[in-house]
């Protein structure tokens, strides 16, 4: 698998506070990578470091295969668009002028692209309005348009849904999906709205205290979080035989427990188990979401 972004033991310290403590992360090309963690877990610090706003205390990171702190890394950064925390805009300029400004920074010859980008993010009618009069959602969308100005291969968006109304959230979500599918842009997102993140992310990274707890693909997560019935029986061997006969997909967890991924008729199952000489002790319906997975992973005891 090709990675557009890799970090190795990345550390960032502010005085005695360790914001990142040996972060290891890999963002595959074409992925929508969701960074999940509590407040202060290090998500924004990681993004700041990766965007060149802060230098790491120790450790390394690679952007498109180039060391991030080298000259090649600075050149590779040209392929990145980012909205870290607040969108980077000049409030006294209009939306169109901000895009024109960014086009000049990037040395883009075709400045007519500003109109296309405004249309893409749904700000065609507000392009001539001063940014200081924009709503939070409009600023967020303008920030994304600015990040897209250089036709980037990697888009870094820190809390892109923050402060948006439900309609705004839907629009930004659809924009993220469209950019990923149509333009093949790899995305690195962080969000507190796990339900929203689960609608777009193809990969997840769970951060806690500046460390990566776990990286998992959406597919793997789906496997882990599949709806299932957890059966507790006297003998899982006998249960297996019964489930084979019923044609149900299952995973044996222990001598007495198994997860069944099928809608089962409990009466039929009980009958089948009786035939195998097995006793059904308990049935529990399990429906684990990203949220419950996150809570289980983090422990859920701290709320800072």
């Amino acid at each position, binding site marked *: 698998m090709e990675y557009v972004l890799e970090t190795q033991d990345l550390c960032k310290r502010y005085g005695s506070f360790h914001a990142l403590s040996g972060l290891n992360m890999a963002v595959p090309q074409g992925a929508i990578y969701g960074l999940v963690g509590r407040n202060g877990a290090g998500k924004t610090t990681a993004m700041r470091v990766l965007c060149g706003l802060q230098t790491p205390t120790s450790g390394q990171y690679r952007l498109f295969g180039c060391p991030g702190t080298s000259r090649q890394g600075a050149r590779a950064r040209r392929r990145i668009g980012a909205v870290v925390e607040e969108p980077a*805009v000049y*409030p006294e300029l209009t939306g169109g002028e901000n895009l024109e400004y960014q086009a000049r*920074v990037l*040395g883009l010859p075709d400045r007519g692209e500003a109109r296309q980008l405004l249309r893409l993010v749904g700000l065609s009618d507000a392009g001539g309005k001063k940014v200081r009069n924009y709503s939070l959602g409009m600023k967020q969308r303008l920030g994304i348009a600015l990040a897209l100005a250089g036709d980037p291969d990697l888009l870094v968006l820190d809390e892109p849904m923050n402060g948006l109304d439900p309609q705004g959230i839907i629009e930004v979500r659809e924009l993220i999906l469209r950019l990923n599918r149509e333009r093949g842009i790899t995305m690195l997102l962080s969000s507190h709205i796990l339900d929203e993140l689960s609608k777009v992310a193809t990969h997840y990274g769970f951060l806690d205290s500046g460390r990566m707890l776990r990286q998992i693909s959406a597919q793997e997560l789906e496997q882990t979080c599949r709806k299932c019935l957890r059966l507790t029986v006297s003998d899982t061997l006998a249960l297996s035989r019964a489930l084979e006969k019923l044609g149900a997909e299952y995973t044996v967890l222990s001598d007495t427990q198994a997860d069944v991924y099928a809608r089962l008729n409990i009466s039929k199952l009980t009958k089948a188990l009786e035939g195998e000489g097995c006793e059904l002790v308990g049935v529990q319906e399990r429906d684990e979401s990203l949220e419950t997975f996150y809570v289980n992973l983090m422990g859920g005891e701290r709320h800072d």
Partner: protein
Amino acid sequence: MINLLSAQFYRLRRDGLFWALSAAALALSAFNGWRVGADAALYKVQASLDKVYFDVSPMMALAYAVFTALFLGAEYGGGAIRGKLTVGKTRTQVYLANYCVCLGANLCLLLLTMLGGLTAALYLGGFTAGAGKVTLEILSCVFQCAALTAVFVALASLCTNRALGSAGALLLALGLILGASLIYNVLQEPDYTSEMIITIDGAVMGPKEPNPHYVAEPLRTIFRGLLYFLPTGQAILLANQGLAHPIWGMLCSLAIALGGNLGGILAFRRKDLK
């Protein structure tokens, strides 16, 4: 770097503050020139354009401070500075582009102030000094502008709070003006003074006595050097027709501009941006 300059000058053209300060610089210097010239003509005071033309030059430090602090403060205020760094522009490039655009704008303010000051010529006629001397004096103002801009750019680049940065720049400008003015006044103290005694025959001068406020050597040389070193000191000397060595002044300004930029770049490169 060229791209950054193109972008920054594009923003400057749309900056309301810049146009407001330009209009104010032109209007105030034109009014001041007209007022000084008209007063000289009305009261039949012996004056020439040379004597009044650089009157406002010490105050230019305030205009440079206000513009630089507010213009660069917007880089942090809206977080726009991140937009440049995330696309691979180096901090040195960003800093130098900021310096160049602020220098351009401040020189524009200086030019407009000088143009406005020419209204005094309506009453006082042209310069009496030679073209070479006037050119050197104008060049001295340009170098002072470069030096002060470097100092204010460094301050604005290192202070992320726009309000704090602006207040700091204003206070620094005032401090530089007042400090230089204080040194100038101290140096103007005569070595001996004599009291005026009123008698029935009229006023007569008393015996000469050493002036306790007179600054003797070697402190006098240090103060004179400091006055030449400070851009605001040079401006005060210029306003009082006392800038005897403009080349030295320019070299000092150049040293401040280079030192300010170098120090500013080094500190800016280490700064964590949020």
